[in-house]
């Protein structure tokens, strides 16, 4: 009984901490009596989620990431609930609207959607990015009791506000509470849509917006996973909501709140750096532009500053490795021009399907709606058909309000949507549809507002609107149901955890073998990103384009260097496929084969694996492949240096403040860093090898 109560209490504590922290912040900012009811609670919970992440991050940076301290922090933040505004208060209220049969239907749809999400959350995590870093990093931080910096682009050196909330949930309740927290915090995006929409339309329209967001495939896909985009959507939507109110009331406190919320998105993902100036521009085009601008900037820096400061502190580049060649890197950060080129090449070939030009930007909405999968991931995890189906009604709404539309506060939202869309499409790194998820709620509110105006102007368009929303919801709900079948087999069908993971995670059998056979003193090198979460903490994940500490690029073939880099990282075992002799003698598998040929490595196990094409539906799997576990034999290897190998230091810092920074850098932080990233090879460890 206690076992089941404790995790639920953990989840409740995390939720209360988020809400309490946000309520306290709204009170301290003096903005708690500005929002209508639902908007108040949503904004508080969203801001509070960020506050929880920032607090956990600070504790982790200080080396105090323990369950006891995190629980204490959550209790303190929860106490903020006493600052909640009185329920009976004269507040700005939204237009009253009657409860109708549609209200009941839409609330039922929301409940059904929640059910699907909860089923997905009760299954073990299986989404690729989530296993590679969203959940793997928090697990590693908790094990270390502190932050661990990986100078790995894209999924190592990243802003971490959301990951720190996962760490809190994992610490207080375990994996299941972490997935439940990831799921339930995603719902804030739907609440944000409802809150914002409610200011411009009646309840049923706003509920329809929440339903459409909750059931859109791109959100379903991220529902119980650690992907940051959906919670990012909540940050962006509430930020724009606050910015609109800041403009309307000329209230600089709200500008600070808008900055804080936008900063939280930047603290979740580098993409947020593109949103920040856009919402800032919304605020400064007015009379008291300086006051609004400076408070907005302060809020944003408060939220995002610690995370970018941490990345800079460790690497020398606050947006690692985007500024390579522009700023000097810390000693020991082995990023190079070769890796920058490999990373750019990877993005161009695997993340972009069409040229980043204005004509393609204009064609993109058609492509993601009417074209099969491609590189956009738009078919299975896209935005559905709603936008195009609603288009004539939206145009009618624009026509109906053509004389007053220029005064609409929603122009701020449209500006952010259009600005981010073109900025990301033309200059962003990837064209996958989910990268646009943070602005989708704003777009949804604008579309629904226009539809509602069309409906008000011409009541005979009512049935069209109902059919558009109904068809889109029916379609999306059916996808949600199909998506829920897979986790339901585990949750309701009595499937074991290992069986579920075998069906859903490529090469999971390798993780089982490794966990059963390697010990705490072993360190495994691998390139299977989907296994990071399920492998021992001290395994080393090398990415062929993003991880410079062990060079496994497609073009890499220097086995001696490979050997030395593994020695620096303390690698004892390697997980690799056999090299296919039909392809060029380069790359990770080739170098692993060469180690075997040279007598430096011995195969100790083989595991069969499949490339799964989908977790949800039955698609033909890729060709089966074999993974070999190799034991590195340093005693007999001709590549072994007689002198200990050390990494050549990177360029020294030339910042004017670098001397001061060096003094401030504590030696114990340095030791902790070395302990977790530069495992040193010792003779005693070698004696432990079989």
């Amino acid at each position: 009984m206690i076992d089941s109560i404790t995790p639920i209490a953990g989840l409740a504590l995390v939720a209360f901490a988020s809400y309490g922290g946000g309520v306290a912040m709204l009170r301290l900012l003096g903005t708690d009596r500005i929002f209508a009811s639902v908007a108040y609670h949503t904004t508080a919970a969203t801001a509070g989620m960020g506050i929880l992440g920032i607090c956990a991050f600070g504790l982790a940076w200080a080396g105090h990431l323990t369950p006891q301290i995190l629980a204490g922090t959550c209790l303190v933040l929860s106490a903020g609930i006493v600052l909640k505004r009185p329920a009976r208060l004269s507040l700005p209220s939204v237009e009253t609207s009657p409860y109708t049969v549609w209200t009941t239907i839409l609330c039922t749809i929301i409940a059904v959607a929640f059910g699907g999400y909860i089923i997905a959350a009760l299954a073990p995590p299986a989404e690729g990015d989530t296993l590679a870093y969203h959940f793997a990093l928090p697990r590693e931080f908790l094990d270390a009791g502190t932050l661990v910096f990986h100078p790995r682009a894209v999924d190592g050196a990243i802003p971490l506000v959301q990951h720190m909330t996962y760490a809190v949930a994992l610490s207080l309740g375990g994996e299941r509470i972490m997935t439940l927290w990831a799921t339930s915090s995603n719902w804030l995006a739907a609440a944000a849509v409802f809150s914002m929409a409610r200011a411009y339309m009646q309840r049923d329209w706003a509920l329809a917006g929440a339903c459409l967001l909750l059931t859109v495939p791109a959100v379903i896909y991220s529902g119980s996973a650690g992907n940051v985009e959906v919670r990012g959507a909540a940050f962006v939507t509430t930020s724009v909501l606050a910015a609109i109110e800041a403009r309307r009331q000329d209230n600089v406190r709200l500008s600070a709140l808008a900055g804080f919320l936008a900063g939280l998105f930047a603290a979740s993902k580098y993409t947020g750096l593109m949103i920040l100036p856009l919402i800032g521009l919304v605020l400064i085009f007015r009379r008291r532009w300086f006051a609004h601008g400076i408070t907005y900037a302060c809020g944003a820096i408060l939220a995002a500053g610690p995370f970018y400061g941490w990345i800079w502190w460790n690497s020398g580049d606050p947006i690692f490795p985007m500024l390579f060649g522009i700023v000097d890197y810390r000693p020991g950060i082995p990023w190079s021009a070769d890796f920058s080129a490999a990373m750019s090449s990877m993005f161009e070939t695997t993340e972009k399907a069409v040229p980043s030009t204005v004509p393609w930007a204009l064609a993109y909405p058609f492509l993601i709606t009417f074209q099969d999968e491609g590189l956009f991931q738009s078919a299975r995890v896209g935005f559905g058909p709603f936008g195009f189906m609603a288009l004539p009604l939206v145009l009618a709404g624009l026509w109906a309000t053509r004389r007053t539309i220029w005064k609409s506060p929603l122009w701020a939202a449209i500006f952010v949507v259009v600005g981010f869309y073109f900025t990301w499409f033309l200059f962003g790194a990837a064209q996958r549809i989910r990268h646009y998820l943070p602005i989708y709620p704003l777009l949804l509110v604008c579309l629904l507002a226009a539809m509602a105006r069309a409906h008000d102007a011409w009541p005979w368009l009512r049935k069209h609107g109902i059919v558009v929303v109904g068809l889109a919801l029916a379609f999306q709900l059916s996808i949600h149901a199909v998506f829920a079948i897979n986790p339901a087999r585990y949750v309701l069908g009595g499937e074991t955890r290992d069986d579920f993971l075998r069906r859903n995670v490529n090469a999971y059998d390798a993780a089982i073998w490794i966990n059963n056979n390697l010990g705490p003193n072993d360190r495994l090198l691998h390139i299977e990103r989907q296994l990071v979460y399920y492998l021992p903490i001290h395994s080393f994940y090398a990415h062929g384009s993003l991880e410079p500490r062990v060079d496994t690029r497609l073009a890499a073939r220097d086995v001696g260097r490979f050997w030395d880099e593994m020695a620096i990282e303390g690698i004892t075992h390697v997980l690799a496929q056999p090299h296919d002799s039909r392809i060029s003698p380069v790359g990770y598998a080739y170098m692993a084969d060469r180690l075997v040929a040279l007598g430096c490595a011995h195969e100790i196990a083989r595991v069969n694996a499949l490339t799964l094409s989908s977790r949800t539906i039955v698609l033909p799997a890729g060709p089966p492949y074999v993974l070999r576990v190799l034991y590195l034999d340093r005693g007999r290897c001709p590549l072994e240096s007689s002198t200990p190998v050390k990494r050549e230091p990177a360029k020294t810092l030339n910042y004017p403040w670098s001397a001061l920074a060096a003094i401030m850098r504590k030696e114990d932080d340095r030791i902790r860093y070395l302990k977790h990233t530069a495992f040193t090879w010792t003779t005693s460890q070698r004696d432990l090898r079989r």
Partner: protein
Amino acid sequence: MTTPNSPVPAGKDAATLSRTVSVLVWIWVGAAFVGHVWALRSYARPVLDLLSALIRGLIP
């Protein structure tokens, strides 16, 4: 009946025009929906396979 904002002229043509607009909207909505579903046609068989497997599992 039309509102002052309406692009549809008042009078006996109004009903005809609104009917025409209505039909055009229906055509657009239908085409957009069918077009999107058609784009996903390659997933129809896997989804049907999944559902049939599910039904077989539920009904011994």
